[in-house]
């Protein structure tokens, strides 16, 4: 069934009355203006740019149809002037972000149509060496990604960078009106307004989300959405080109001089399908708009534009013909990531922790000093999070005093985990080490799109040219009675993220020692702190027990009984490590086992060397963590050791597979106990006999 605007509107007259007239009136009324714009000699460059986009898009669409392009494609035929006029107002430090339908914006902003064609043909001369193809483009000051709205907070972060730079600069982001269904749009608008960011969001309204008519996807009016946040909104269309030109200029000027955001609704119409073969629209409707296509108007009415169009066609055809001989990216170049490499060597060099400077301060105070040192030594570092401003200083007081000491770089934020991580990513891509605090680690789930589809992917996807040194700090762990959504340990969801380090701190040693090099990594880091550890002072080992640290870039700690031979290797991290260390003697007495407690700080990547060293000697392994054992860090350790063919037997101890309840007796039962650990040790012992 063809779902057209007309039908959609007749189905829902109450909510969508006027929609079709918006598009039709804009096209009808603007068509004369389009002619005026095209015939104006000073606009020749923009018209030619639009024609270039049209020719390239037609060529790509044709290649796609003939199966010459791998993957998918979203052409912007009918919407070309959006990108073509953009180029006119961009300056050196301006930045453009775009979405899946980004070819026109890319050509308008960079002019590099050859790089685009190569990218889609998948060869090494593509702007990103052919890695991401159509939706994932990067060039100096241009970035597109395939998720809806996901780049908006990144753009806001870049806008924050541009706002504080001497040379200035503005950020222009393109989204489609279908993206208005994503909450991240509103989180970003809120922050744009609160922080007066030089950010222009152009919402291209082509009336369809893929094949779904707007009547089914957008309620209310689009422009009023921005108005609700106090963000100036403007509207234009791709027929009345002089008016669009003026409106865009006004919006960019406003960002450049007044440091204010603008939300520009650009009514337009896509003449091609969303991709290909997914067009359910009424043909008559498409034809009506095709007859009022400004690019066609230029070619039909002006011989020099028609000639230019033919010239472009030949140029593009010749260029495509050359593509067959171009080199392809080598897998060995593509796959290596930015995470630290741990040398597979043995033995590790261990140093006793108590011979290093310790501290009488609580863990939270030590962390506070650690981050303060970072902010002092790195004038580019930012530290943002919810509720972190003084005098409150954050829910766990890690940020106490920081906003007073560094008022411009330490910012308290609205409750918008996804947007603030996105802003951190934007800052990080501009060379700022950015710390983003997630108050309760449970809510890092809101930011998963930002971490997985942006932070972790930029490096590979943009052909190793974009670093994203963001540090996302989150407080994990239970035993505080905070209940199901404030007590979890989500490490098992985090360790599976590519090119992203997951570090887990503990209070067995100072943060300085644990993070000696951990925060100087080029890629994203999820840094987990523990709620119970915050209140603790650095661990003091009982007599006859030593805490050692190895010499790896991100160290591993080891708690060892002196003058005894360990027969089992225990592995625990985060708050669980301290929980065990505090009860070391109890476990020894009850289980009749002398063990090594290995405490990794880097959960991903794992440093296997100290683990192998211990397990090779003991032959028995118990992993313990607060989160469930299914698909956990422990599971990964056991699997990796298995692949090394070390003879060993293992047990995993984890939390129960149920939400962590609040009442003490239930919470205690939900999390690993000393009894659980002893049971695992005894079970291993029995299997050994």
């Amino acid at each position, binding site marked *: 069934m063809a779902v057209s605007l007309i039908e959609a509107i007749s189905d829902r007259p109450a909510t969508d009355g006027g929609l079709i007239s918006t598009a039709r009136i804009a096209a009808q009324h603007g068509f004369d203006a389009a002619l005026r714009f095209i015939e104006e000699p000073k606009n020749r460059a923009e018209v030619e740019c639009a024609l270039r986009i049209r020719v390239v898009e037609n060529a790509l669409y044709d290649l796609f149809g003939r199966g010459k392009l791998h993957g998918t494609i979203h052409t912007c035929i009918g919407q070309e002037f959006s990108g073509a006029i953009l180029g006119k107002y961009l300056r050196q430090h301006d930045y453009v972000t775009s979405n899946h339908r980004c070819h026109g914006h890319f050509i308008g902003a960079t002019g590099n149509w050859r790089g685009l064609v190569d990218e889609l043909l998948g060869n090494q001369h593509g702007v990103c060496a052919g890695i991401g193809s159509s939706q994932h483009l990067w060039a100096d000051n241009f970035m597109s990604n395939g998720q809806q709205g996901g780049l908006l907070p990144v753009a806001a972060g870049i806008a924050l960078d541009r706002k504080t730079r001497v040379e200035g600069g503005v950020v222009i982001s393109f989204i489609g009106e279908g993206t208005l269904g994503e909450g991240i749009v509103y989180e970003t608008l809120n922050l744009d307004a609160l922080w007066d960011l030089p950010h222009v969001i152009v919402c291209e309204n082509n009336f369809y989300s893929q094949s779904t008519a707007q009547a089914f996807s957008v309620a209310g009016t689009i422009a009023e959405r921005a108005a609700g946040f106090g963000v100036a909104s403007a509207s234009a269309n791709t027929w009345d080109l002089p008016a669009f030109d003026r409106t865009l200029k006004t919006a960019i000027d406003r960002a450049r001089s007044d440091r204010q955001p603008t939300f520009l609704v650009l009514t337009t119409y896509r003449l091609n399908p969303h991709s290909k073969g997914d067009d359910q629209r009424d043909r008559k409707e498409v034809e009506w708009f095709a007859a009022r296509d400004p690019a066609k108007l230029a070619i039909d009415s002006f011989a020099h534009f028609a000639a230019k169009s033919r010239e472009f066609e030949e140029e593009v055809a010749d260029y495509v013909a050359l593509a067959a001989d171009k080199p392809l990216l080598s897998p060995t170049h593509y796959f290596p990531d930015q995470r630290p490499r741990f040398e597979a060597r043995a033995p590790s060099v261990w140093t006793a922790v*108590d011979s290093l400077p310790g501290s009488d301060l*609580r863990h939270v105070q030590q962390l506070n000093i650690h981050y303060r040192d970072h902010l002092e030594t790195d004038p580019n570092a930012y530290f943002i999070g919810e509720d972190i401003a003084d005098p409150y200083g954050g829910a766990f007081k890690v940020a106490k005093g920081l906003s007073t000491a560094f008022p411009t770089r330490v910012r308290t934020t609205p409750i918008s985990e996804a947007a603030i991580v996105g802003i951190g990513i934007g800052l990080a891509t501009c060379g700022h080490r950015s710390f983003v605090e997630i108050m309760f680690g449970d809510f890092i789930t809101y930011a998963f799109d930002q971490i997985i589809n942006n932070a972790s992917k930029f490096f590979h996807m943009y052909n190793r040219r974009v670093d994203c040194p963001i540090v996302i700090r989150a407080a994990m762990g239970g*035993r*505080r*009675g905070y209940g199901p959504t404030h007590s979890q340990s989500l490490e098992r969801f985090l360790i599976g993220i590519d090119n992203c380090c997951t570090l887990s701190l503990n209070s067995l040693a100072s943060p300085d020692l644990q993070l000696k090099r951990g925060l100087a990594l080029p890629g994203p880091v999820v840094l987990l702190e523990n709620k*119970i550890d915050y*209140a*603790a*002072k650095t*661990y*003091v080992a*009982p*007599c*006859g*027990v030593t805490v050692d640290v190895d010499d790896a870039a991100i160290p591993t700690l080891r708690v060892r*009984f*002196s*003058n*005894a*031979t360990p*027969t089992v290797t225990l592995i625990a991290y985060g708050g669980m490590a301290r929980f065990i260390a*505090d*009860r*070391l*003697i109890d476990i*020894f*007495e*009850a*289980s*009749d*086992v*002398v063990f090594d407690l290995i405490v990794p700080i880097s959960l991903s990547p794992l440093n296997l060397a100290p683990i192998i060293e211990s397990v090779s000697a003991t032959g028995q392994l118990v992993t313990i963590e607060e989160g469930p054992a299914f698909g956990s860090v422990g599971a990964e350790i056991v699997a990796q050791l298995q692949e090394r063919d070390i003879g060993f037997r293992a047990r995993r101890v984890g939390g129960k597979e149920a939400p962590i309840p609040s009442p*003490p007796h239930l919470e205690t039962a939900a999390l690993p106990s000393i009894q659980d650990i002893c049971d695992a040790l005894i079970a291993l012992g*029995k*299997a050994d*006999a």
Partner: protein
Amino acid sequence: MSGTDIVLERETANDESALIVAIHILSGSAVEADALIFDIENSKATQELRAPTAGVVVHDLQVGDVVKFGIPLARIMPSNDHDDPDHVVHALPVAGSPLRDSPIGENAQIRFEDSGAKVTAIDKGAAVPARFSKAATALIHEMKLSPEQFETGFVTTRDVLVIGSGGRAVLPFAEVQSATRRKGAQASASTKTLRPPGGVAVTGRKRAEINALGEGAGATHLSVLGTTLGAISMRRPKGDFLQDRITDLVIYEAARLMRKYPNLNAHYRDGEIFRYEAVHAGMAIDRGGNLVVYGIEHADRLDFQDLGIGMSDAVARYMNDELSAWEMSRATFTVTDLSGGVLDYVLPLVPRGQSCILGITRTEPANFRLFAGFDHRVTEGFEVSAFLNELAGRVRSFSEREDALPDAGLCCGICDRSLAEATVKGRDKGMLKIVDFRGRESLCCASCWNGW
């Protein structure tokens, strides 16, 4: 009990309780007035609890405890220690406190300073007195050892059994006549283990043999001999739970023979042979995937009834997972019975701390074979051959073959021993016929008549 209570006052309307996040002064310590004792955290803030008066703090809290509002957390007792110039007190251990694991008193002390109490290790490098796991403590008691024998370190049952050093030090060894004993005894001295007395250095000839075997093609000190027992279809005495098996017969006779062949009830370690004083027969039990050797204590002194009871009890406790580490490690030789299936041959491997293991197989329903695996460093084929033949003869004597045994059916009414056994062994002189006051007749062997 007099004293001043410290009560936690409610700070917020939302909380019923708060969390102890730090204990600055251990229970039993002297405090000045206003000294910081606890850090307590509720959902909104951290609270400090200070001593209202000077005295001695008494509490039973540990970090991580959740405490209710309005209930006394601790009490300050009037101090009697004001004449102590340093205010050094030997604190009572506080259950679960992060500091309590320091063996306060010998290696650490609590010292009062202006900033509060501190636990100070007197000398980190000094030897730490031994600490025992609960199971190790129980085992030490069971084995009648003394904790003082373990100088330092963390002692588990493994250490008590001296498994780590490969020795069997805790079992007493036979009196040694040779002047060559204890040669090189310091070679494997361990801080944790007992050095066994009673070792006999191997002779030069034996040492040469050991070296030659170690460098031979097989590079092993294990050897094995076997013999056929033949059909033992109608055995005597009847085994209640063993039915047609002969495990108990082999254990019964082998244990007794060990007195005659002490090298097979011994073990080799660092150039010395240690002959066990006691004979604890090991019975291998395996119901799939969990092989243990249960040590039947003083098997050479048990009669058939006690041996049978001991064996069936061990199997039952094995099934219930109740065997202690000591029971599973005290055996001085081992018998492994594989006659459940049809096998021609077994190469029984000598367990650590032993020099001999006997294997039983069955080639057809009632045709048994007996194998002896032995440590060539301790004994040799000649000795083991003699042992095996003697053992086979004794076990065969239990067979009730009507064609071969004219006295079939005649057996001791007390121990069930057959007349054949009583005669073959050469110890007993037949049986006595006993008539009770009702006129009923029964037989009694000489052993039962004389007592064991």
